């Protein structure tokens, strides 16, 4: 069955017809062409699909598309909308906190959502905040350093 939903994506209002069982991740990727959020497990276990829902990080694979009705979604595609890289993105580039890049969008959105709540985190707090975002390449240390560095910029 199709449902019509209206919600905000990256500050723009969109209306979509979605199936009951389709996830927000599927709607973003297949109906809106926003492929920055990745499919890693479709089970909420890897964090590669992390987006912000009213500023809160969520696994887009665990949110049904119909649940987005009336909410505001932000994806990686919005992070440098101004044309300039976000301080988090700059820190990731500077510190080589990227390898294959598949976890990177989710990692950045999780970090953005977290820093909005806690602008001056300790290293331990950042480690805890990122625990649901798996990365198999980098060993995390440069990602953690980048988030701490960007926190100083953002604050």
């Amino acid at each position: 069955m199709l449902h019509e939903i209206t919600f905000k994506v990256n500050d723009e209002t969109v209306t979509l017809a979605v199936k009951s069982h389709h996830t927000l991740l599927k709607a973003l990727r297949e109906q809106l062409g926003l492929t920055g959020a990745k499919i890693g497990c479709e089970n909420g276990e890897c964090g590669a699909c992390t987006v912000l829902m009213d500023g809160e990080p969520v696994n887009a694979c665990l949110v049904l598309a119909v649940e987005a009705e009336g909410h505001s979604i932000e994806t990686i595609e919005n992070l440098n909308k101004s044309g300039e890289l976000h301080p988090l993105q700059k820190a990731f580039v500077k510190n080589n906190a990227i390898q294959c890049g598949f976890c990177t969008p989710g990692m950045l959105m999780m970090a953005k959502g977290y820093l909005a709540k806690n602008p001056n985190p300790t290293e331990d707090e950042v480690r805890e905040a990122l625990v649901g975002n798996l990365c198999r390449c980098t060993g995390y240390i440069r990602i953690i350093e980048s988030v701490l560095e960007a926190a100083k910029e953002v604050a």
Partner: protein
Amino acid sequence: MTTECVTVGKSVTRIDAAEKVTGSVQYVDDLPFGPSLLYGKLLHSPHAHALIKHLDATKALALPGVKAVVSGKDTPKPIGLYLKDRTIFPIDRVRYVGEVVAGVVATSEEIAEKALELIEVDYELLPAVFDPYLAAQPDAPLLHPDLGKYEVVNFVFPEPGTNVSEHFKLRKGDVDAAWPKCTAIIEDTFSLPQIQHVPIEPHIAVARWDKDNQVTLWAASQSPFAQRDLIAQSLDIPHGDLRVIAPYVGGGFGGKAGISIEANVVVMARAVKGTPVKVRMTREEEFLSTNVRQSLVGKYKIGVDGEGNLTAMQVEYYFGGGSSNEYGTNIARAAGYSCTGPYDCPNVKGDSRCVYTNTQIGSAMRGFGMPEIHWGLEQIMDRLADQIGMDRVEFRKRNCVRTGDTIVTGMKMPAIDLIKCIDLAAKGIGWGKKEAPTGPNKLRGKGIAIMWKAPAMPPNPGSSAIIRFNEDATANVFVGGQELGQGTFTVMAQIAAETLGIPYESIRMTVNPIDTRYSPYEWQTVASRLTWSMGNAVKAAAEDARFKILDTVAKYWKEDIKDLDIKNGVVVSYKSEREQPLKKMVVYGLPNENYEGWQGGPIVGSGKFMPTYVTNLDPDTGQGTRAVVHYTVGAQAVDLEVDTETGIVEVLKIVSAYDVGKAINPDLVLTQIEGGAVHGMSSAFEGYIYDEKGKMLNHSLVDYKIATSMDAPRKIQGEIVESAVEDGPYGARGVGEHVMVQTAPAMANAIADALGIRFNHLPLSAEKIYLAMLEKGIV
């Protein structure tokens, strides 16, 4: 003339950084295929070992939306890299729980999934065997009665009538005569379970078989050219009509090397000609049905004399190769010719076997046999040092391989400095200093382990590169190796810029996607071989382009080419001090005097590299002139503590030192060292768990845990040693895999230091450690 490098040796920014942090980079799943796209799902075997008596897809095909069902009857010809021991879909037998039996193509994933339930398969169960040592015994159930009829390369030696698909024999000196000379001998058995690569991007492939029989495959792939070759052979497609397109890969670690689901998807597309078909593995399928790191049972007997000199080594390796060993045979072979680890020992008897087991296909994974064999080797070295009362670091320095040594296969060791690596690792960890635990109920210890690894390949894997100049003197560099995150495109740009004499910023890597129709040939992105092999090809292409430019300018100036050079994008003459910018002339050439004709033209450089000096080894002794191109060596030291209330290990610090020949981009080397250390640490806690019928039980990221941000050590200190190799670009060799090879044994050695307890069998689960502490009376 200065020889100092301008770009090589500098930590320039990754060439793929911006597109990766903005989310604009497209992986296979992000490519648009339009509304006609069909979806494929795979049927998996519920049995570990069974004959397929009958497969009936009638009901599945009757389901509305189902377009095709394909199975073994559609794929009669074998496929495989070193040993053609399987077909794309199995014809008459399944050999592990999870093996792909059939493929459904439908208009949606949901319909394809429903159709899977409607395929009726009659199986006749057969006895199964899971342990590689047991599978190698004469009374074991036979998985491949046809072994002996399969096509095989001439350096792999299957034993027909058994489950042994490869038996590598190493014979040097006389171990039996040497045992009486030993003061201390350790004899013990070690084992490792299967583990998974767990790339965050699952395996995915899309294929379209056009009605005019042009075939396109889009795949998350470390091996677009090898896949083209294997699929073309198996499905009788002319190589030129099969196009493999491989964009950036979201993590590989060996799991996307060789072939896994790609050929299946091409066969599914053949059944619905003209329409693309997409198959993306679920995370559960990733665990149940894609390639794994092989299990190992290793039996060791190693002895030293009274002065601490290694005197005799006898090793028997049984690799659990899984249902097909088409790729895995070469893992056992690599473990065979490197069976001693990085040690010099006069008497060696090594037997390394790849053994069929009723488990997932054991294939390439970061380290390719080396993490497996070093797990036991490096613990025994500690125990031998302890027994003769020698410091563990001193013991390793006394016995490790050095430049120019005649190593275990008889080849001369190319330039390395393992001693320096050991010293750096020991110094970095504060070797010999006992540290206080960070809190109550914790025991702390330090451990060290060393390693070696050579690129494990056929003797002649090739690389090639093309460089094409543009009007503004930017240059497009074409290669066929893949970016998996290791930074190879950045390193290739640096080599090209350095050799051409143009700025790094002028290079455009023309590589995404790698496309077998347009990209130059590259064997595979494996074996840590790209910096070295593809780097040599890029350097050769740059030299070719550079010669063409200088030749043009030399004729234009009427000077000798030997007096000319290219500096920062300008041709200079050391003799006349004239200058000629590259802009325009690299496309339009240069005029003769009074415009009486022209010189030059569009500059295109091409280059290739293939090692031509590797020799086959004697099948009875493993001896030969040159077993491999070279080795990369390294040392790792670990500082950790064990929580005595839970058995949980916390790694505090890892120091890693590797001899990379030359660091083309030092910070990228450090990113490999750091990521590899955490991967290695994680691997010590990972392992497939099976029920008694061979079904893998922990097939999710909740039950099969990989290291998270909270598990990463506080500090990873990377150290780079540079002993240039003769056959590498600017002296460089690979390091991508080596960085995780000995982490697990270094941790086991540190745990032994903390607890006085040895663990011979991975994984190092908290439960296992706690129970051992309980038994020893520590808790």
